[in-house]
């Protein structure tokens, strides 16, 4: 099997699977109880938090709240801070867990302010910032790394510019596709109101996410109950998952540089290989400093991506679609459409995303299988408008 959809999720690191089994066996106690084993569980959470804080260089000014996933982290922060009437802004190319959360404020006559006209290859053009001040925007929400394109919004220059141009606007970044894949600049934290993470994107378990936020902010809880986690997120803490999260993040950060270098080699190899094919390919992701080397997104009209995915699947190669298309939702990816692609181009887009275990040989096999499937499918799609 060749798995090239690591932006969707990653396989769990075998080392973490082993540890997690141990954690589940030993650390079963409720960390909210007062007896010894409960206190031990609580200690383990504290230790995990210290390790995460250290690995990511999070300053003491920020709180850590564990959630069930990245989507919950994004919902908790945005709703907890801005619901229902604080003004928000976004580029419009974020993950649905941000865009849909912001758009849900529409019902309260508080639709988010879209900055899509300031989109430059999937990144926010900083010339928009005076507008944030003018519109009295309280929170700007962006992807650190775009989930479909891999383009990077560099936080530090953005934060510096925001301080000058719109000092009252806070910044929230979705870091779910960033951790372990690109280098984090620890200076960003002081200017960040919030940042979200999810363990399964860096070889940790599913079911555990994290929200890092400025402790000066009052977040309204979205789940009510006990007083766990500063009263911001009620619910018994999953101690084993938290320990596995910490372990996964430590591993990811420790090998980040090596991983990134490896990704760059795979990225170059893939793009180079695709360029050699006699197939007209349009790259939706970019290349270079402000692009995560973990994601390559490209279009190959007129062949539809969904059918391409199934042809690759026959060869045990798994890649993601640039657009989520199904019989029910024939709408092509909002992100790609937001980038200015036609419906046909968006429907004919594939997202290849790497993990550190992928090899050059696998990329070669992918290119070969892709080319073969493309030639098989071309007669089917030739001369017909896919987007009808």
């Amino acid at each position: 099997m060749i798995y090239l959809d690591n932006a969707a999720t990653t396989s769990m690191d075998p080392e973490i699977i082993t540890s997690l089994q141990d954690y589940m066996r030993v650390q079963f106690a409720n960390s909210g109880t007062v007896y010894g084993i409960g206190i031990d569980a609580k200690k383990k959470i504290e230790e995990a938090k210290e390790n995460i804080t250290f690995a990511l260089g999070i300053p003491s000014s920020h709180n850590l709240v564990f959630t069930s996933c990245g989507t919950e982290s994004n919902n908790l922060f945005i709703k907890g801070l801005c619901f229902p009437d604080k003004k928000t802004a976004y580029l419009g190319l974020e993950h649905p867990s941000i865009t849909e959360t912001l758009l849900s404020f529409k019902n309260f006559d508080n639709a988010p302010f879209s900055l899509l006209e300031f989109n430059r290859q999937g990144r926010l053009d900083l010339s928009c910032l005076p507008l944030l001040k003018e519109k009295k925007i309280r929170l700007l929400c962006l992807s650190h790394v775009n989930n479909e394109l891999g383009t990077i919004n560099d936080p530090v220059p953005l934060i510096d510019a925001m301080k000058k141009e719109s000092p009252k606007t806070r910044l929230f970044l979705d870091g779910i596709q960033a951790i372990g894949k690109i280098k984090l600049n620890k200076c960003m934290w002081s200017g960040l109101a919030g940042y979200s993470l999810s363990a399964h994107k860096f070889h940790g378990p599913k079911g555990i996410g994290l929200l890092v936020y400025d402790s000066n902010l009052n977040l309204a809880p979205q789940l009510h109950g006990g007083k766990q986690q500063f009263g911001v997120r009620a619910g018994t803490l999953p101690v084993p998952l938290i320990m596995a999260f910490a372990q996964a993040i430590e591993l990811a950060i420790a090998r980040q540089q090596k991983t990134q270098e490896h990704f760059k080699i795979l990225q170059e190899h893939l793009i180079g290989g695709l360029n050699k094919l006699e197939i007209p390919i349009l790259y939706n992701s970019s290349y270079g400093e402000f692009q995560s080397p973990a994601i390559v997104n490209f279009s190959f009209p007129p062949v539809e991506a969904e059918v391409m995915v199934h042809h690759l699947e026959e060869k045990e190669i798994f890649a993601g679609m640039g657009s989520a298309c199904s019989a029910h939702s024939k709408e092509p990816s909002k992100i790609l459409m937001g980038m200015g692609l036609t419906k046909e181009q968006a429907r004919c887009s594939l997202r290849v995303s790497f993990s550190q275990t992928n090899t050059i040989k696998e990329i070669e096999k992918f290119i070969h299988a892709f080319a073969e499937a493309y030639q098989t499918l071309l007669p089917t799609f030739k001369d017909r408008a896919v987007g009808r």
Partner: protein
Amino acid sequence: MIEKRTILVRYDEIGLKGGNRKYFTKILLKNIKRALPGDRGIEYRVPRGRILIDLPKSIADEIGDQLKMIPGIASYSIGISVNPDFDEIAGLGVKLIEPLLKSKGKLKFCVRTRRSAKTFPKTSPEVNFEVGSRIMSQLQEKGLVVDIKGAEVTFEIEIGTTDTIIFDNRHSGLSGLPVGSAGNILCMMSGGIDSPVAAHLMACRGCRVHFVFFDNQPFLGRGGYEKVLKLSKIINRYQGRANLFVIPFQDIQVAIRDHCREENRVVLYRRMMYRIADSIAKQYEMPGLVTGESLGQVASQTLENLAAVTCVTSINVFRPLIGMNKEGIIKRAREIGTYEVSIEPQPDCCAVFMPSSPVTRGKISILENDEEKFMWKELQEEALANMETIKVDYL
């Protein structure tokens, strides 16, 4: 001691079957025994063709719900053994009827007695009177009315040689005929809303329905396959086990797409499906095909196009939905529990294989002319040779 209940199963049209009644009852009893758990203290009696199920009180309601899923059962009632004492019987009757009165205000009721123990000193009408008058004396003021023909609640008493049982109100069953009494049949399943409803209707007419699915995984992925498997399992709740035949159909679709007139594609795909279904049905001795077609619903379901597909098979084709509208079909799909699965998003082949304007009145001679352009017989044999057969249980 475990408190017991007795369920009386009433069957529907078996009663009309005259000399064959025994045969139908036997199949129904077999189906009931197979559907109900074998290890929970359930015992069966068939006194003169009546099906009685003795079981612990604790599982009576649960088993009743399972009886609602068995074709051939018109209704059932849960009964309690009592002493043959009119005061005791009437007391229990009041207990049963009073709650219903509270919710309705006014209620028409009657007492029906069946007396198989002829040694019992009173006749059935006399028992009806004795018990009915006792119940009326307590509940008449609260709105209870005797109405033998228009009763909303029937209080039934069974006086047997060994015991006397009183039954609660009738719970409706699926009716129809017991599965297996009519024979085996093959349903062409697409994963949509219609075909499972058609399959269910035929199961309720006594057929054991097997399924065939025309798959195209290289283009559409495994979603359709999983969906049809799930739908077959839901239908099997009503009929027990059945086979699902999965035919790899991509080569046939590609050949038709590449060689035939674009507007004829859909009818040509369907002619091939019918031919393959015909072969499977003959191989497994199934004397009928069933489809979810409804007249005029889509371009391929016009009178002409239905004729163009039917003529490739010599087997009976049953289309139980032919005169139904979509709304009615959806309502039934919801009732039998297939709707939610049928509407799960599933990639379709529209963009790849569908013509932009399909023919609505296909001419058989033109279709046959198209079929000369590709090796359909070889492709049909190849598809049948690569058929997967799955023995499907129920969900």
